[in-house]
């Protein structure tokens, strides 16, 4: 399972790094340089990513040409929005290392940091 998830990540990053649409063959040729992998594995992974909405594809002759449905930055921004609007509204359950702080609390922390910085080696 773990390895398969990894492959989805690797392939998405390759698609993002490409300028235009890519075919399974092109990605397979690149991937083959660095790992032992079957053509069908790459094909089914890209098919999965298409099914899950990560990749768009258009038929070009016999093969499909794939493009990402959104850029890496757009996905990052979407995740951050979901993660940071936090609390009651989103149903995503996640634990932040530091929760949203109110003004007074964050001011108190800044005071501690300022004091430490004055005293510390910096």
């Amino acid at each position, binding site marked *: 399972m773990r390895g398969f998830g990894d492959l989805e990540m690797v392939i998405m990053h390759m698609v993002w790094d490409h300028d235009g649409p890519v075919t399974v063959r092109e990605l397979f040729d690149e991937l083959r340089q660095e790992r032992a992998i079957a053509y069908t594995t790459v094909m089914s992974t890209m098919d999965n990513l298409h099914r899950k909405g990560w990749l768009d594809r258009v038929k070009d002759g016999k093969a499909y040409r794939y493009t990402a449905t959104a850029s890496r930055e757009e996905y990052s921004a979407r*995740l951050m929005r979901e993660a940071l609007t936090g609390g009651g509204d989103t149903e995503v359950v996640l*634990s*932040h290392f530091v929760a949203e702080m109110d003004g007074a*609390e964050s001011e108190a*922390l800044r005071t*501690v940091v300022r004091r430490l910085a004055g005293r510390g080696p910096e």
Partner: protein
Amino acid sequence: MKPALLVLGYALVVAWCLPALLTRLTAAGLSARLGLAAWLAAMVSVLASLLAAIQYLFTAAVAGWPQLAEAVCRSVAGGACTTVVYRSAAFELGLGLAAVTAALALAVLAWRYGRSVQRAQRRTRAHAEAARITGRRLPGAGAAVVLNAAQPAAYCVPGRPAAIVLTSAALAVLDPGQLDAVLAHERAHLAGRHHLLIALTRALAATFPGVPLFTRAPAEVARMAEMCADDAAARRSSRPTLIAALLAMGTGTAVPAAALAATTCAVSARVQRLLEPAPPARHARNRLALVTVMLLLAVVSGLVTRYAGPLAAYGWS
């Protein structure tokens, strides 16, 4: 009726009176793990009593519908209640309708609860998957991925597998030791299945709006879980490193590893308990108090249910 009312009364007392006491006992986070256990025990106790009350009412209705009809009639109308009234078809029909409505309402509550837990789980897993695909692996940190973002943030999302997410801005303000502390904190959440506890209590709060024990629990359970994870992280790295990481992430500025122990300042309870741990005697007293609360919950709810059982058997409806 009486056994059900007795058990129900107990549940109401716990649900309305205990939150204030628990909040006081767990405010400073002296024993985070016991505090977490106490909140969970209170909720389990109330839910179990609720189920017992429903069971008694159901048994009473099945075993002696006429007696139940009489008891309900008397409790509502008192002296005005006569045989003519509670043996009438209209009254029996009304009572029957009320019973069916109550049963349906319960089914709807249970269904809503299940659906809200399920939906949270689905969206959480989707978030974890999206983070794993979008982020870049943090070398040597297992499940951790890095997203490009200007805001320092670090969080973990359960899933298959789970993900620990750090933003590029967070990496910029943390030194390697502090990063280890953050990762240890997030791993403690995942290992302790804190998300599951939070998801279950949140769904309870949504299912029972207006019940203090349930509406206050999500925030309190999350706070206790946070402190449990802090304790785990402090054991793994060190307390000063963890505090520095908290300060760095909280203010978005790098914090030099300086002499933190000497600082006294009114900061959040979470930092305060790490800065100045309470003396062992206070810890022990707090543990004793929390354990007592949990024991009382177990003993009293057990007694109430046991006492209500024979009461029901004698047909004191």
